[in-house]
């Protein structure tokens, strides 16, 4: 029985990792300053639906793999840490206790934590290891916009998927 559960966990994390890679690489919305990718939508969806550990592994691994495939290998460790933490923290905040619905306050807190983790995480780590403080600071507005849009869409998509495919609720761990 334990083996069955382990196989399900491995299958779930693998598919969710692939989902994060696809959302990062395939979906790109052009804006005036470049592109918005939807990795945060996938991460927030996983955090809302599957719980902290799935969110941590799938978000970290998915974004790191997307960086490796796209030719930005040097960003992969940073993406792993930042997005992994983003998924873990958001999932921990919005984790349901029994049948009680997640309050609006907790959702707002999760949104703030999500935006802060992505923008400050990328700023601090890229300034420390890859670029300069000023270059990293210039990326902050884009990261804030991307994570805010990602959080809002992730919330909506999570509710829509739970309605369209109810068995998804039983997969969380």
């Amino acid at each position, binding site marked *: 029985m334990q083996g*069955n559960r382990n*196989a399900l966990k491995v299958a779930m994390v693998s598919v969710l990792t692939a*989902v994060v890679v696809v959302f990062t690489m395939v979906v790109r919305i052009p804006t005036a300053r470049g592109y918005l990718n939807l990795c945060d*939508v996938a991460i927030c*969806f996983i955090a809302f639906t599957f719980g902290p550990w799935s969110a941590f592994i799938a978000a970290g691994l998915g974004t790191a*793999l997307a960086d490796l495939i796209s030719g930005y290998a*040097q960003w992969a460790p940073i993406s792993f840490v930042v997005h992994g933490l983003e998924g873990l923290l958001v999932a921990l905040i919005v984790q349901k206790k029994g049948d009680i619905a997640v309050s609006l306050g907790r959702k707002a807190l999760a949104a703030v934590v999500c935006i802060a983790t992505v923008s400050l995480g990328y700023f601090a780590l890229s300034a420390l290891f890859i*670029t300069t403080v000023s270059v990293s600071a210039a990326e902050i507005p884009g990261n804030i916009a991307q994570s805010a849009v990602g959080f809002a869409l992730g919330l909506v998509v999570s509710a829509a998927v739970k309605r369209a495919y109810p068995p998804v609720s039983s997969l969380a761990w």
Partner: protein
Amino acid sequence: MTTNTYIAGKGWLYRFDPRAKLLLMILMCIWFFLPVSLLHLGIVVTLVVLVGSSNTGWHHAWRTFCSISPMLLFMVLFMPFNVREGVPLITIGRFILITNEGLEQALRLMSRFIGITYVCTLLFATTVMHEVMLALRWYHLPYKASLVVTLAFTYIPFIADSFSQITESHRLREAEDEQKKKVGHRLKDLVPTLTSALVVALRSIPNLAMSLEMRGFGREEKRTSFHRLDAYHHVFIHFVLSCIIPIVFWLVSMLF
């Protein structure tokens, strides 16, 4: 959607053991942060690019450079604001645009950025993914973790294809031109597409879990491996070379 970063070739980097190559990549990334002169840093970056290009071709080097060019442009644009102290090189009226120290720091950061990027992409351009996974497992990466990565790579094309088909079918139902819509409207329209794509992906989880069980996942017996790294010879020499190359670079930069 291309998920394969490997470029076929016959150069010496292709014959280099993946485990030693992984070690060399990490040591070179550390080397770029050592306090060496700008001249030595530039020479080493040029050497890395030359050696890499002789293995993977100039096209790969150019493509890697193009992918990081926006970030390099940012570094040049922000150069006047990074370092204000030092000997002025270019001034506009009373405003010092570039100082000697500022230029040196910008060049150092750009060289480091190009070096790290090129070393990392070179590993994945000269090593097939299953050999990278075998090398990571040799460094004691858990079997489950490598299985997750392998399965994710298998599922990426399937999910990407489903996503494209769903996007196309949703687009065909819309009368309004996609390009004329505002960003907010476009994001709102994405919700049904994303929901459908996610449901398709999630439905494959139980099937994948079942096939893993049928293949014996989770059983106690020691598993066999189809792919092996036995084809690589002189592994010890490769490991020694991986350690010696960064050390020689560092010693040369200290002595001259």
